[in-house]
């Protein structure tokens, strides 16, 4: 390592641990370290960075994950050498590294990168709530992707962590009243995490979020399975109510039909009841949604958009950006009602408006 580079690095380092970590990385990957004396203070050239980036992306797209991982690792190291250990430029590379680790099912490595991503995010953006919230959402998304490929305690662990990151994002955004519009989609995501976790809760085991930050299940003191489910239901219902209240108190853009948005939000509350086996309450919400829709000049279109096509539950998008009348292309008469809205153990659908009467059977 050149004197110039050493001075640059020392200046940026605030902890001996990280200094040691960089040293270790240089030892592990000599191919990048070898370039240092030749390039002096600039360490790795921009051309080399672009080549690494393009190669890694290509390998990833081709499904050659091992080689992609190796190239991304090299790129990651190069970026850290060029811009420092606390540089924002690491984040896009980290994002790709996390994705490749998930593709490779390299869970230990993934956890290390996720922890590093989280630590770096807080280090970089402690005074920038919007950027902090965005990166926490990235972290959450990767954990969710990992959870989708895992089973059992590991899956639950990642789901809980993903949800926790979203709560942290919410807390960060709540400090900025001007950014309040970003909150409802996050609330919906958190509610959906609760729904996903209800399938994983086990009566006799300690729930992760209460006991420990480690991905280990400990038997003993716990919220029982029923209690976890009840709490998840309550939190989701509270969040959906919050979303509904939020939009009712706001002035919506003129292109958005207020009846459409209100009916959508109420139908989401109905969905929640249906997901937690409360068909009667769900029916009340759905009827209220239909009643609100009927006040609009586009009543039929709203009804068809919300209750006339296949809607897999839980809904992941608030869908408030639609204007209503012109955007519904489905003809209700063409839908085979009995086939589309057949709720099963694994898949739940919002009922068709014609079948609402039979919901409680």
């Amino acid at each position, binding site marked *: 390592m050149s004197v110039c580079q050493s001075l640059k690095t020392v200046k940026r380092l605030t902890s001996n641990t990280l200094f040691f970590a960089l040293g270790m990385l240089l030892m592990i990957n000599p191919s990048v370290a070898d370039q240092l004396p030749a390039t002096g203070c600039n360490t790795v050239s921009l051309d080399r960075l672009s080549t690494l980036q393009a190669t890694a992306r290509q390998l990833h797209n081709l499904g050659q994950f091992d080689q992609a991982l190796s190239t991304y690792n090299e790129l990651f190291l190069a970026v850290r050498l060029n811009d420092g250990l606390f540089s924002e430029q690491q984040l896009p590379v980290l994002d790709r590294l996390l994705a490749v680790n998930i593709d490779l099912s390299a869970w230990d490595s993934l956890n290390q990168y996720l922890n590093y991503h989280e630590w770096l995010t807080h280090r970089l953006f402690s005074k920038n709530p919007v950027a902090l919230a965005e990166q926490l959402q990235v972290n959450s998304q990767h954990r969710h992707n990992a959870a989708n490929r895992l089973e059992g305690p590991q899956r639950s662990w990642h789901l809980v962590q993903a*949800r926790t990151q979203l709560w*942290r994002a919410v*807390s960060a955004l709540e400090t900025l009243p001007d950014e309040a519009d970003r909150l409802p989609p996050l609330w919906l995501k958190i509610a959906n995490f609760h729904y996903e976790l209800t399938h994983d809760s086990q009566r006799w085991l300690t729930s992760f979020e*209460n006991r420990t930050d480690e991905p280990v299940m400990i038997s003993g*003191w716990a919220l029982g399975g029923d209690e976890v489910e009840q709490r998840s239901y309550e939190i989701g219902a509270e969040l959906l109510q919050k979303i509904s209240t939020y939009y009712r108190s706001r002035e919506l853009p003129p292109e958005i039909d207020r009846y459409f948005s209100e009916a959508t939000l109420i139908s989401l509350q109905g969905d929640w009841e249906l997901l937690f086996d409360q068909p009667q309450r769900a029916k009340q919400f759905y009827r209220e949604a239909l009643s609100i829709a009927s006040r609009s000049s586009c009543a039929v279109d709203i009804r068809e958009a919300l209750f006339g096509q296949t809607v897999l539950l839980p809904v992941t998008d608030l869908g408030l950006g639609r204007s209503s009348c012109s955007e519904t292309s489905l003809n209700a008469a063409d839908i085979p009602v009995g086939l589309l809205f057949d709720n099963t153990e694994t898949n739940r659908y919002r009922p068709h408006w014609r079948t609402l009467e039979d919901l409680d059977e």
Partner: protein
Amino acid sequence: MNNSQLHRSLKALRLPAILLAISAAVSACITAEEALQRQAGRMPTPAEVEQYNASVAPEERIVCRNEIPVGSNIPVRKCRLMNDIDETSTFHREQLRRALR
């Protein structure tokens, strides 16, 4: 009923009416005070608890649950620090062990 009788009846009703109005006003004040107290001392909702727990260290996390106090059938929502729950349960276990020796 002539006019003077009506006047007397109304006069007789005046005092109770005033008392009733005062008591209604006083009770309204108490209700408002109570409402404020309740607002100030209200337990956090489940979502608020979870949001709080997400942003603090594990030892500072809280658990809120419905507990049925001895001598009552009405559940009361109680929030406790997880550390306190652990310590209390360890203490009770030790007491129980001592008693069983």
